């Protein structure tokens, strides 16, 4: 952590008239120079004898503007970005401490259209508060949800979650309340709460931003799960590629223990809940829930047969509430503001909001939390501003490496779990990766099979062997060898993988392949008629 970070926190030592400056400590911001910017601001202020207080927050999610610097003014926070260390002197010269004009200035952060049009429920505090200050968290509505949940009978608390319509945000979209109800009904004296923070899908980073920017929301959501369902021990399984998130979570848990928000007597309720972070080890498959449980038990991350469901026999064979980071993080607002308030967002059976992530070749990449029901086109153009390269968007992949490549013809469909499923696509974890017209989607289809081969746990044959054969068949088609026969073979293979695999890795890896075959056959060097050949 940088020297400037010493000024983070509520800054009780800072002089009262010091201007508050906010620089993200999110790893994305740090990856493009936020620490150096914060250090340079501190040094420049010291040299000028101007008292400033630098608060390191999460990121607002306007990631193309990172490193973003915000200055507190009587009207609100004023944003500048993307700021590099070399720009700091000119920011001081332009009186940015009073929100002065500057070529990098964007006015009030909350009036930047990208931000102003969002519906931030789960991410309400991210980028606003000091992620490691419980006082800051509570001042912004934190722990109101847990207090309400503690006052409810467990069955009523579960009913509230069912009423909210919340579905699992990790990708499978299973109703969260049903999982909790199942665990609550189990008589076991030992139960667990497990958070899946193995966010391995390319194009997704909302879990990471939440853990780094507002870890107490996750901790609160898991604590609610524990006290409602009768579990006293929770684990957060964080992927090893996220060291910043792991450090932030550990620091936050330590503080929550010290203040009585975790431990033997949660908020004086007499109920116990302890929480521990466990680090993954670079296996994509461990994002699959049963594989994750095996890994938490210290074993190879081999997928389990279901049934039994994890809610009945999960971690160490005990009933386990197992949800994704964003699912748990959506829970506090549901209890704090009521199930109906959450359910009022969204469409059809997709209720509430989803933090979308605009990624890849996109001009304005970042996090957009919106109610379900807006269209891909709105996300890609109104928010995303088209491609970073300035070329036309050719395809987007939604929902990670197992998601379909969606052509422009489908950009007007609403983002809704059911609408996507009807087109053979999935919303998944809300990640959207954009490709311009230079992209070789044949190579991307090959990569989908290659990735499946690298990451397969090896337990079932369709995934373990099918993925390798898939790469070989795609290579033959690309080399124009017996194309007609090999297209039939590829489609047959995809069918086998979809129907015969034990979990979503082998079961969905064919989706990106088939979508390229169906929508972009020219990238397989195929005429459309040849690409549609199927077994007679």
């Amino acid at each position, binding site marked *: 952590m940088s020297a400037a970070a010493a000024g983070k926190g509520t800054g009780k030592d800072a002089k009262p008239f010091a201007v508050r400056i906010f620089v993200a400590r999110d790893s*994305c911001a*740090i990856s493009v120079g936020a620490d150096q910017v914060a250090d340079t601001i501190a040094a420049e202020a010291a040299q000028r004898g101007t008292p400033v207080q630098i608060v390191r927050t999460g990121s607002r999610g306007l990631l193309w503007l*990172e490193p973003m610097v915000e200055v507190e003014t009587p009207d609100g926070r004023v944003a500048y970005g993307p700021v590099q260390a070399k720009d700091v002197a000119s920011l001081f010269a332009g009186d940015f401490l009073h929100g002065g004009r500057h070529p990098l200035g964007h006015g009030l952060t909350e009036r930047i259209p990208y931000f102003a049009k969002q519906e931030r429920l789960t991410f309400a505090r991210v980028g606003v508060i000091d992620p490691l200050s419980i006082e800051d968290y509570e001042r912004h509505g934190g722990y109101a949800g847990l207090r309400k949940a503690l006052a409810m009978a467990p069955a009523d608390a579960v009913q509230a979650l069912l009423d909210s319509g919340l579905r699992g945000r990790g990708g499978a979209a299973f109703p969260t309340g049903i999982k909790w109800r199942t665990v609550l009904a189990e008589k076991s004296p030992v139960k667990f709460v497990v958070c899946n923070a193995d966010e391995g899908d390319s194009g997704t980073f909302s879990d990471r931003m939440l853990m780094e920017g507002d870890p107490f929301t996750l901790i609160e959501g898991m604590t609610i799960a524990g006290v409602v369902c009768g579990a006293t021990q929770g684990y957060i399984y964080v992927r090893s590629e996220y060291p*910043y998130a792991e450090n932030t979570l550990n620091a936050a848990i330590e503080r929550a223990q010290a203040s009585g928000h975790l431990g033997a007597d949660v908020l004086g309720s007499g109920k116990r809940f302890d929480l521990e972070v466990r680090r993954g080890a670079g296996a994509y498959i461990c994002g699959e829930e049963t594989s994750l449980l095996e890994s938490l038990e210290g074993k190879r991350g081999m997928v389990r047969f279901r049934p039994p469901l994890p809610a009945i026999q999960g971690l*160490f064979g005990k009933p386990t509430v197992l949800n994704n980071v964003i699912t748990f993080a959506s829970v506090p607002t549901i209890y704090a503001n009521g199930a109906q308030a959450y359910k009022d967002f969204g469409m059809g059976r997709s209720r509430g909001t989803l933090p979308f*992530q605009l990624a890849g*070749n996109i001009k304005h990449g970042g996090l957009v939390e919106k109610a379900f029901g807006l269209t891909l086109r709105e996300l890609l153009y109104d928010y995303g501003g088209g491609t970073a390269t300035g070329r036309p968007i050719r395809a987007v992949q939604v929902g990670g490496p197992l998601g379909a490549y969606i052509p422009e013809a489908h950009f007007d469909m609403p983002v809704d779990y059911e609408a996507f499923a009807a087109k053979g696509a999935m919303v998944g974890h809300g990640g959207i990766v954009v*490709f311009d017209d230079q992209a070789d989607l044949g190579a991307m289809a090959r990569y989908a099979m290659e*990735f499946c081969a690298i990451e397969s746990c090896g337990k079932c044959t369709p995934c373990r062997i099918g993925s390798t054969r898939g790469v070989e068949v795609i290579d033959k088609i690309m080399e124009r060898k017996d194309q007609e026969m090999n297209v039939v073979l590829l489609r047959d293979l995809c069918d086998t993988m979809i129907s015969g695999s034990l979990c979503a890795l082998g079961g969905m890896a064919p989706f990106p392949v088939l979508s390229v075959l169906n929508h972009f056959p020219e990238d397989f060097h195929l005429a459309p008629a040849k690409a549609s050949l199927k077994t007679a």
Partner: protein
Amino acid sequence: MTPEEAVNMAVATHASRPGGLLPLLHEVQDRLGYVPRESVAHIANAMHLSIAEVHGVITFYHHFRQEAPGKHTMRVCLAEACRSMGAQKLLAHAQSSLGVDLHETTSDGAITLEPVYCLGNCACSPAVMVDNDLKGRVNAKAFDELVAQCRETA
């Protein structure tokens, strides 16, 4: 710290924890940079597992390694979002400028080059991780600067 001491410390801390094998292996690798083959029998004995089980876990996970890496590890993201922004070109540059293939270490022992599949920095692609430091918007020039910094501290 000798490898034996590092392993003994990790065993003392984690052997009796539920599901303690992964935390144990992480601690060994955090201290030594790898999990020595010679330590597998000792770890297995302490955890009441077979050597095959411990070996199976180490080799299942991409993160664990059994050979000492270079002084620094550079991981280039090869997942979809980074590919859409030229990750393969960056990888080709990395391989030719460092003179190594993936999973190999430069002849001066300074840098090990590894692939990684998503670092969660998908709006600032291409992404690279140098040891535990995340880097975004990495072009060939930025990559060379990272290499130079690694070599200075190798």
